[in-house]
Each structure stands twice: as structure tokens, then as C-alpha cells.
């Protein structure tokens, strides 16, 4: 059974996309947008640059490191438990006379477990925080130039009333081209 919900037309601009050929112009664009209060942007580069990261995240470190640490601790615990508990499960003194649970040889396996799980956890965290595999990025980011020799800024959620201002900031920062931002009517459902 369908319930009738009031539908209200809200003016929202289509995604705005700026393409840059210069790194310093891109940084200016990011900083000017932030100064004007537009922080919700996607910056696209064909390679990583620290100045871009610093301009957006202002030195805040990625949380991936906590997963690396947790993975390492988990791996060490698991690997040592595997060796110690399975040996204790069948307590046999093998030729050579090492005790049932002998720490030095088990350290080797523990070390390998630490590295393995820290690596897997890091990979998982990278995918989790980086939202990979990427599936819900706006169409505007799909530009072949961004994997080649250009940089870009895409703003997805800009109100129609701000679109012109954003476009003007981007143009003034030195963008090669600025597109999108045409007002479109989006239906918003209020339950």
C-alpha cells in the first residue's frame, strides 16, 4: 500500500566540475572554496601530492594506522596461540629436547603472523576508509584527464543559489574550465 507523501521541489545545482592544469592553481581553488565555506568537495589528481592532502585535511592523519596496529596485535596473538596451544594439545618432547611450549622457535611464527595480519588489516582499512571498490562516486569525476595530466575539483551538493559563486571562485583560482552547476529541480520526499 503506498502512502502519499508531500513532495516539495528544492532547487539544487547539478555537480560543478573544475579542471586544472596547474598544481598551485588547484591548491588555490581548494583553499578559496574552504574560505568561502564550501568544504564538501572531491579533489581529483592522477598521483598523490602532500600539499593537496594538507590543504584538505590540514594534517589530520588517516585512521588506517589503528587498523594496522590492531591487525598486528591480533596476528601476534593468533600465531603464538596457534603454536603454543596446538603443542600443548599433544604434549610430546621431540628429539632435541625443547620444552613443549618453547618460546624462541615460536617467535618466528609469531613474527610472521604479526606481519601478515597487519598487512591484511591495512588493506581492509584502506578499502574501508577509501570507499573501495568505488561505486557511488558522481558521474562528474569520470574524466580521463584525471588519470593523465589534469587535476580536478567536483562539488556535488551545492544549492542553486550558491552555484554561481562557487563557479566564480573556481574560475578565479585558475581553472582551465568550469562546468555544471545548472539549476535542476530535485524531488525531496518528506515522510
Amino acid at each position, binding site marked *: 500500500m503506498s502512502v502519499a507523501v508531500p513532495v516539495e521541489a528544492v532547487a539544487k545545482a547539478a555537480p560543478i566540475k573544475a579542471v586544472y592544469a596547474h598544481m598551485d592553481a588547484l591548491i588555490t581553488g581548494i583553499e578559496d572554496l574552504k574560505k568561502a565555506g564550501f568544504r564538501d568537495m*572531491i579533489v581529483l589528481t*592522477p598521483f598523490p601530492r602532500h600539499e593537496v592532502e594538507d590543504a584538505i585535511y590540514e594534517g589530520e592523519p588517516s585512521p588506517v594506522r589503528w587498523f594496522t596496529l590492531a591487525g598486528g596485535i591480533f596476528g601476534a596473538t593468533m600465531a603464538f596461540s596457534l603454536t603454543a596451544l*596446538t603443542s600443548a594439545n599433544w604434549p610430546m618432547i621431540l628429539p632435541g629436547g625443547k620444552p613443549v611450549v618453547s618460546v624462541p622457535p615460536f617467535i618466528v611464527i609469531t613474527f610472521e*603472523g604479526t*606481519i601478515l595480519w597487519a598487512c591484511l588489516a591495512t588493506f581492509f582499512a584502506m578499502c574501508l576508509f*577509501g570507499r*573501495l*571498490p568505488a561505486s557511488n562516486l558522481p558521474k562528474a569525476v569520470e574524466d580521463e584527464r584525471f588519470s593523465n595530466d589534469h587535476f580536478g575539483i567536483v562539488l556535488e551538493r551545492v544549492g542553486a543559489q550558491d552555484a554561481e559563486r562557487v563557479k566564480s571562485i573556481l574560475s578565479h583560482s*585558475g581553472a582551465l574550465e568550469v562546468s555544471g552547476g545548472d539549476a535542476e529541480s530535485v524531488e525531496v520526499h518528506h515522510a
Partner: protein
Amino acid sequence: MSEPTYSAVNRDVLKPLFTPTAAYFGLLGLCLAGLAWGGYCWLTQLLWGLGVAGYHPPVFWGVYITTFVFWVGIGHAGTLISAVLFLTRSRWRTGINRAAEAMTIFAVMTAALFPAIHVGRAWYAYWLFPYPNQRQLWVNFKSPLMWDVFAVSTYFTVSTVFFFIGLVPDMASVRDTTKGFTRWLYGAMCLGWRGTDRQWRHYMAAYGFFAALATPLVLSVHSVVSWDFAMAQTPGWHSTIFPPYFVAGAIFSGCAMVITLMLPLAKIFNLESYMHTWHFEHLAKLCLFTGGILTYAYGIEYFIAWYSDNPYEWGTFVDRVNGNYWWVFATMVFCNCIAPLPWYFKKVRTNHVWLFAISILINVGMWFERYNIIASSLSHSFDPGAWVYYVPTYIEWGIMLGSFAWFFLWFLLFVKIMPSVAIAELKEAMRPPLKSDELAAK
């Protein structure tokens, strides 16, 4: 020489992809033929048992373990270049790291075949892994062979993840130059990568950690492999010098293999502006350094054998020079200690012919080093009544040849389907185009 532009990097690196020539198919065919011969030899061994190998009590380790250690060692240079040189911010890493990482993975994939070949009944190879069997009896974690299983499998997993992560942005570049199904395929392989700030931020954090995690593996994996020998009582093996000696040897042989593979790669695919003589010169220097450590280790082994006054130990070492395996010892010393010395001259280490020729000699020498350690020690152990001369059969040589074909086959496939130079990293190392530069020029 002026720096190439970003688009030139894309164009040059992606050019060799997907366009196999007749020569390429020729090489591929050669590899397949070698692989078929190796496969035939292994099949013979599977059908008739290990008797077809040249084993004779007490020598039950031979060409297979030699080749296993050889290939694990080859892998080390890739990890050294991709991880250690990343952490030390060495600029000469960029350009050769991708192909070196690929080499690591293919080398470990080749090495991983040998425990299964060596145990004879390959269908029981899963006994190597810890799993609760019917009697609740687990593997012996005190055995260095077990440590090796963990070391090599961890090494393979970490190297593969590291390699894949590095490829992600570059596969996006491949996707953006292709169409249809290929585009879809590369889009899936690069996980839908677009190079957004969010993606790069966590990517770079993770990449640093992968490098930091892979770095101890450079030292640990071959240390563990060396314990396969050093933990045993056998004369010639039972030595604390083995871990550093093996690690130095691994990096030595690995760097030589990088030269062997990448000199032709750069020439054939016109990648010389990305892998230039400067890179190969650095590799040669690394070989000189690790080769020096190796020569020192060879010498100190003899000194300790003599100084220990242990007749069994000294007997084995004298036998290595005077006994049946004198030619193996001589090849090893010539190829590993003497042949690289001309690289001390800049003219020699910047000459591509010399670089290539000496790198081949090092590869040969490092195979014989492992053969020298394994065959001469086992065939000349404590009891003179059990001394034998182990001679490999054509089955063993065939399988070894097949392993080379298998390795080169993967490498050939790699150069046609993946960018052999890390595009994003190359661009990262370049000076970005700046508007301020343009204004200043005006």
C-alpha cells in the same frame, strides 16, 4: 635531458601494452616449450616416484632445494627496491620498482612449486599447513621447515598485496585509454579508482605501512630459509653466519636478476627514459656491496671451520675445494666474488653489455652457491662410509629449466597486460606544472 610531461609518461608506459609482436610470440613459445619439458619431467617423477631423481642416501636434498632457495633469493631485490628504498626516499627506486615487484612475485611463485616437487608425492603437499588432522596431531612448529612455510607464504601474500596496491592507480590509467570489455575489466581491477582526495589519503597512509611491513621481510625471509640449513647439525650448515650471509646473497642475486630482466625490457619497449643507466648503475653498486659481504662470508666460513678445530667441519670445507664438487666451488667463487669486481670501474658499470653479461654470471654463480652448500655438505657428512657423489639426473635439470620457463612466462605476460613502470609514482616524483612558473617565464 628534460623531464617528460605527465601525458608523455602515460603514453610511453602504456604503449607496450596489448600489442604483441611476432618476436614476443616467439619468446612466449620458447617459454611454453621449456615449461612443457619441465612438466613432462615432473609428470615422469609423479608417475615413477623420486627414484628418477639422482638422490642417493644420504643425499636427499639436491637440485630442487637448490632451485627453491635460488628463486626465493631472487625475490628479495624486488622487496628491497619497493619497500626499503621507499622508506629511505631513494629517488632511483622510481622507474624500476614496478617490474622489480613483479619479479618478486613471479620468483616466489616459482619457488613455491619446489617444496611440492621435492616431497615427491605432491598431492600430500597440504601436510605442510597446520590443520587439525584425524589424530589431532599438528605440525611441528619447532621445525625450521615449518617456519619456512610461514615465512614464504607471508612473504608471498604481503608482496602480492603491495604489488596490487601499487598497480591500482595505474590500472585506472589503462582503463581510461581502453574501450569495451577491456575498459570494464581494468575498471574492476583498479577497484573503480578515480584518484579522489579520499582515496589518495588512505592509500598513501596504507602504502607507507605496507612498505614498513615488507621491510623486515627482506631480512627475515631468507634468514628463515637459511635456518633450514643452519638449524641442522650437518657440517658446513651448522653456522650462525648463515642468516646475514643468505640475506646478502639474496639481495646480490636479486639485483643481478633485476639488471638481467630490465635492461632488455627498457631497450625493447623504449622505456630508457624511465629506466636509465643511472638505475642500473645503482643496482650494480648494490651488487658490489652485497657481493663484498658474500665474499667476506665465504672467507669467514673457512676461517671458523679451521679455527673451530672440528675435523668434520674442516673436512667438509676442504672437500668443497678438493673433492668432487671443486668445479661447483670454483664457479661460485669466480661468478660471485671475482666477476662483479670490474663494476668498481664506472665505465664498466655504465656499459650495458658489461652490465648484462656480469649480471648473468652472478645469476649462475648464486645458483651454484646453493648447490655447493647443499650437495657438498650432504655428500660429505660425518660417516666416511656414507660419502657419495650426487649427480642430478635429466629429470632434475628438466624441472629446473622448466622453472625458468615458468618464471619468464609470467614476466612476459606481465609486460603486456600491466604497466611495467609505476606511472603515478613517476609523476609524483616530477615537478608539477605551476602557474607561478608560467607567469615568471612571461
